[in-house]
């Protein structure tokens, strides 16, 4: 069995912390940082990266095109 593992890269400079990606993520990967970016927004980041499947739902709903998504097939440990 293989499963999909994913990761996202958030452009924290242009992220406005709207949290639509947080809501859209089916595996609760994303959270908002306690720190703020230069514009004063609590930017999104992977709070739970192990759960990411690379489904891209976060990138789909992102209004500021901040999210790049990677995905690879990983063999399930026996």
């Amino acid at each position: 069995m293989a499963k999909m593992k994913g990761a996202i890269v958030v452009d924290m400079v242009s992220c406005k912390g709207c949290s639509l990606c947080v809501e859209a993520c089916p595996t609760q990967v994303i959270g908002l940082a306690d720190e703020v970016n230069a514009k004063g927004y609590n930017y999104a980041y992977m709070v739970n990266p192990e759960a990411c499947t690379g489904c891209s739902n976060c990138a789909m709903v992102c209004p500021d095109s901040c999210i790049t998504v990677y995905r690879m097939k990983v063999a399930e440990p026996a």
Partner: protein
Amino acid sequence: MEVSIKDIIKPENLVYQKSSLLTEKPMHYCPGCTHGVVNRLIAEVIEELGLQQETIGVTPVGCSVLLYNYIDIDWQEAAHGRAPALGTGIKRLRPDKYVFTYQGDGDLAAIGTAETIHACNRGENILMVFINNGIYGMTGGQMAPTTLEGMAASTCPFGRDPERDGNPLRMTEIVATLPGTRYVTRQAAHTAGAVRKLKKALIKGFNNQKENKGTSFIEVVSTCNSGWKMTPVQANEWMVENMFPFYPLGDIKDK
């Protein structure tokens, strides 16, 4: 074997990135604004269809007035409500180009009602994108032609009263009755699924222009969380609960 994030973040594993047609300019929209999603999708569609050199866009007056700063194509900026007339002039003189207009509810369904209806009725071979968030965002949250009954706005602070303010207008159903329209649909962009459907609709709207069989008209039921005075997530929930019953999603016409 455990896989590290570093192993995943490699060019060969890339599945989604910002369209190369989106400029580096940060969008001026409020956090969580639907405009950003729709702007991005239009850029993606133009890029994927290879139409950068073939497309002329028309921007409106309202929040998306500066849309031309974000997508790397040729643009014309219209007076309030007049985008369909510009689109007509452009397409009639450059029928070889792909032309789309992008307008909000005040622009398309109030001040530009005549231009909207007549462009659709003539069957201008263009794509019209209609962002309906039920409020005037740019000017600070005033009542729109599409503001729902009872919905508050700064010029109907106690809610829209049809006796005083008239009724919310379903422009999309109106243009669907016109013989000039070929494809009329109402979409949203609040979930990944909705965004994917909207993208398909936009692709259709562009591709339809190859066949010159009439106007493609795509309404996007949208949020204006600032104007509605909600968080972006709350605004999506409010839209599903309140906007969708009056502005139901789906294709109205596809011929």
